[in-house]
Each structure stands twice: as C-alpha cells, then as structure tokens.
C-alpha cells in the first residue's frame, strides 16, 4: 500500500468529501430539472382552471388544486392554535420535571409515527368510529394530528428565542404571567411561529398517505361543497394518474407534478423570506 504524505492525503480526502456533497445535492436539482423541462409545455390557463376530462386523460386539474387548498386550510386552522398553546405551555409554564419529560417523549414519538399509520388511525377513528365518512374534515383531523409535533417544536423554538429579560421586565411591572405572554412574548416570537406554520403548510400540501383513505377521492365531478365532501388533491391525483390509469399521456402527469412542485417550493420560499426579513428587523 502506498502511504500518502499528510498534506496529499488531506487534499485527496477533501476531494472525496466534495464529490460526496455533489452527489447529495444532484438528485434534487435533477428532479426539479426533469419535471420543469417536461411539464412546462402543458401549463396554461386552461390546465389550471378546468376540470379533468376523458377519464383524466384530458382537461385540467382545477378540483385537485382547490381540494388541496381546502384541506390544507382546514388542517392549519385545527393544528396551529393547538400546537401553539402546547408550545406556550412547554416553554412558559412547564417546569423541568418528569411530567415535562413525558410530554417531550410524546412529541418525539408522535413525530416519528409513519404517515401511513396516521392514515390508518384516522380511518379507524374519524371515518369509521366517529362516522365522519371519507371527508375533508376526517382528512384534515388526521393531518392536523400528524403536523402537531412539527408545529409544537418550531413554535417552541420561536418562543425560546425571545430573551428572558423581556419577561422579567414585564413581571417587574406587575404584569401577570399570561398578560406577559400575550403582549410581550408572542409578538416577538411571531415571525418564528409564522415561518414554522408556513413550512408546515408546504409539507401538508404534499402529503398523500394520511389522506389516502380518509379524504381523497379518485374523481369528483364538482368542487367541494362542504367539509363533509370527499375531495381530490394534487398529490393523490398525481399518484392516481401515474399508476392507475392506462395510456395516460406523460405530459399531463409531468404538468400535474410541476404544479405540485411549484406550489410546495413557492410556499417554502415564502417561509424563508419571512425568516430573512424578520431576522433583519429583530429587536434583539
């Protein structure tokens, strides 16, 4: 075996590390490139704003876009207040004892449960047991439990980043604990909470497994009327047209994938801009 000098071996190792890094970031660039290149051609106003026709092989994806929007809105309405309150409890009220440790373990465990198990649970409890049927509300409830640990963790980090001296100054003036949280801590933590919420929205928009049997429908000929309707969503629609329908024209699948991708990435970028903007205007 040849022994390299330490300097040469450092250069050699750096090269390998660099190649590995390239390998790690190539897939995401390739995936985005392929989808944009093949999907661009079908994107026009009609594709965005019309119903699917001819057994999905023609027409647009309007109901899937609307469905995704509705289910994501319902989910965030359910999960954000609950998650935020849980974060407030953990960060502002809970003491560092066994009880807080159990809650942390609960959050950790909830975050690790596979999405399909959430789907199974949601199907069993919301669709079957509570008889909500396959509906927007059953899907949104399932998704909101799934997203809860993420919201709690990001909100908690945001609350935690507000300097402790802010609270002490407020208490010293005789302001109660809740009033301090409401008027001092929350406004200062808001940007961080918002960033977390927006990133969650992006994640929920792309989820398929939890709504597979709680909310999603193969095809609905009209837009959803109420939260008890079944609904078409973009990720599920993409799954259906790429696996279940024979002779599906490829460009429509790519177009659907592109819309889903652009939607999710655009939402993520909003979150990143919110973070950058507020980081510049922070009071501490």
């Amino acid at each position: 075996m040849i022994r390299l000098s330490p300097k040469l071996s450092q250069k050699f190792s750096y090269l390998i590390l660099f190649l590995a890094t390239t390998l790690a970031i190539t897939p995401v660039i390739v995936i985005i490139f392929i989808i944009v290149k093949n999907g661009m051609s079908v994107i026009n106003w009609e594709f965005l704003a019309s119903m699917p026709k001819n057994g999905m092989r023609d027409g647009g994806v309007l109901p899937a876009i609307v469905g995704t929007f509705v289910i994501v809105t319902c989910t965030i309405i359910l999960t954000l207040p609950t998650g935020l309150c849980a974060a407030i409890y953990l960060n502002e009220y809970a003491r560092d004892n066994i009880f807080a440790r159990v809650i942390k373990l609960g959050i950790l465990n909830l975050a690790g449960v596979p999405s399909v198990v959430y789907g199974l649970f949601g199907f069993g409890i919301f669709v079957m047991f509570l008889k909500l049927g396959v509906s927007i509300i059953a899907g949104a409830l399932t998704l909101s439990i799934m997203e809860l640990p993420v919201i709690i963790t990001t909100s908690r980090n945001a609350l935690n980043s507000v300097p402790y001296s802010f609270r002490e100054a407020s208490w010293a003036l005789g302001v109660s604990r809740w009033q301090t949280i409401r008027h001092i801590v929350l406004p200062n933590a808001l940007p961080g909470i918002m960033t977390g919420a927006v990133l969650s929205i992006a994640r929920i928009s792309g989820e398929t497994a939890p709504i597979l049997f709680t909310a999603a429908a193969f095809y609905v000929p009209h837009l959803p009327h109420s939260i008890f309707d079944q609904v078409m969503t973009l990720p599920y629609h993409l799954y259906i047209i790429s696996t279940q329908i024979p002779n599906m024209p490829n460009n429509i699948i790519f177009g659907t994938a592109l819309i889903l991708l652009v939607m999710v990435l655009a939402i993520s970028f909003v979150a990143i801009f919110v973070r950058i903007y507020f980081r510049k205007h922070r009071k501490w």
Partner: protein
Amino acid sequence: MRKIVDTIIEKIIFLCGISSVIFVILIFSFLFIESFVFFKDFSIIKFITGRYWYPDSKLALFGIFSLLVGSFLVTLGACLIAVPISIMTALYISEVASKNVRDILKSLVELMVAIPSVVIGFIGMIVLVPCVKKLFNIPTGLTAFSGSVMLAFMAMPTIVTISEDAIRSVPWQYKEGALALGATKWQTMRWIVLKTARPGIIAATMLGIGRVIGETMTVIMITGNSSRIPHSIFEPVRTMTAVIATEIGETVNGSMHYKALFSIGLVLFLITFLINFVADLFLEKNKNK
C-alpha cells in the same frame, strides 16, 4: 375578572400542552385493541413468522415475514447508500466549505425535504426504474434496489442536518489541541471530530432509518409490490407500509383482514417508537458532553 380569564386561558394552554401525549396514547391504544382482538383468532407467532400473506383466500393466511423482509431490505439498501454520503457531506459542509458556500449547500440539501414523496416516486418510475432494468438486465426494474436509491435521497437531508449539528457542537478546544500537536485539518476531522460527534451521527442515522421505514408512496410506486420473499435486492418486494396503503380500502370493517392491517400498523408504530427513543438517548448523550 382579569384573573378568571387568565385562569381559563391557562387551563386551555395546559390541555393543549398534554395533547401530544393524549394522541400518542390514543393511537397506541387504538392499534393495540384491534391487534389484541386479531391475535385472539390468529396466533401472533404465525403472524410474525408466517411466509404467506393471503388475506383473501378461503383459508386466509396473515404471515408478515415477507413484508418484514421487504421493509428491512429496502431500508438496509437505502442506509448503505445514504449514510456514507450524508456523513461526508456533513463534514464538508461544516468543516471544509466557506461560510457562503455552506449556506447554499445547506439550503440545497434541505430543499429535498420539500419535494413530495409522490413526486419522488413518479421520477423513480419514469427515470430510475427503466435504467435499473437495462443496467442489470433483469425482467423488471421495479425492485427493492430502486426503492432503496430513491429512499436514500429522502433520508439524506435528515442525516446530513443532524450530523452537521453534532459535528458543529464538537468543542473547538478539541480541534485546536489536535492542530497544535501538528495534525493536519483532515487528520483532526478523521480522528477527533468524527469520534467526538459519534453519538450525534448515530442518532442522525437512526432518525434517517425511521424516516425510510415509514415511507409509503415512493415505495408503492417503485418496488413492485410482490409479497414473495426476495432472494436478492434486485427482485420486487412489498413493504409493510405498502400493504396498509393498498389494502385498507378493500377491507370490510371489522373483518380479520381489517384487523390484520391494524396489527401491521402496530408493528410499524413499535418499530419507529423504538428507533426514535434510542435516537433521542444518543442525542442527549451528545448534548451532555
């Protein structure tokens, strides 16, 4: 008045605070009860070790051994690909790259998380599966290997981000000590930084495994869904997640098949619980250095 409002709000906040624990208990008991009823009629040993998953035949068989092998094979393959690349990437990002390059690389790695799993599955179907078929000259490209490759991409962001945190939390005194003794930067990384960050890197790997084993859509789309026990990684497999996702819609509520799927859910729940729990122990160890 203000006091009453405060008390009510604080009660609500407390309730939300324990919500996550309530949901974990709820999910567990729900899965457990269905499974308990199932195991009264079907032996748990036959369930785990049975080679055949024939839920629809007259004498229904609910053996998940082939599914366990399928999940295990795909996960193992994904780890073999993702772990070395991710650790090297984490080292490059935290120790070699300049600050500006670091931020760009980090965002690119994290961008992968944002891509929905159906999109990844679709690209796998269109691009990877035909390639695998041609390259290895096998009858179908829908194999455990294809699943492993795509899932490796999905696990990388998790492993890179958490390993990078661990590498960065290595005290600077350790590094300067090594450098002062005449070690090169690379020798310091190799012998000091990696060793000190090991608990964090192990935790990162485990969390990556947790993500891969629970992944559903990508796996359904590109691993072929055949519940025969595979002889190699280049054969179609079926995972536990895929069975739940593809069959729950066809079952009759309360039937044996229905309960069997909840039992698979329980197995998945317990596996991921264990993985996350142990990963957390390693992360705590990393923190208490």
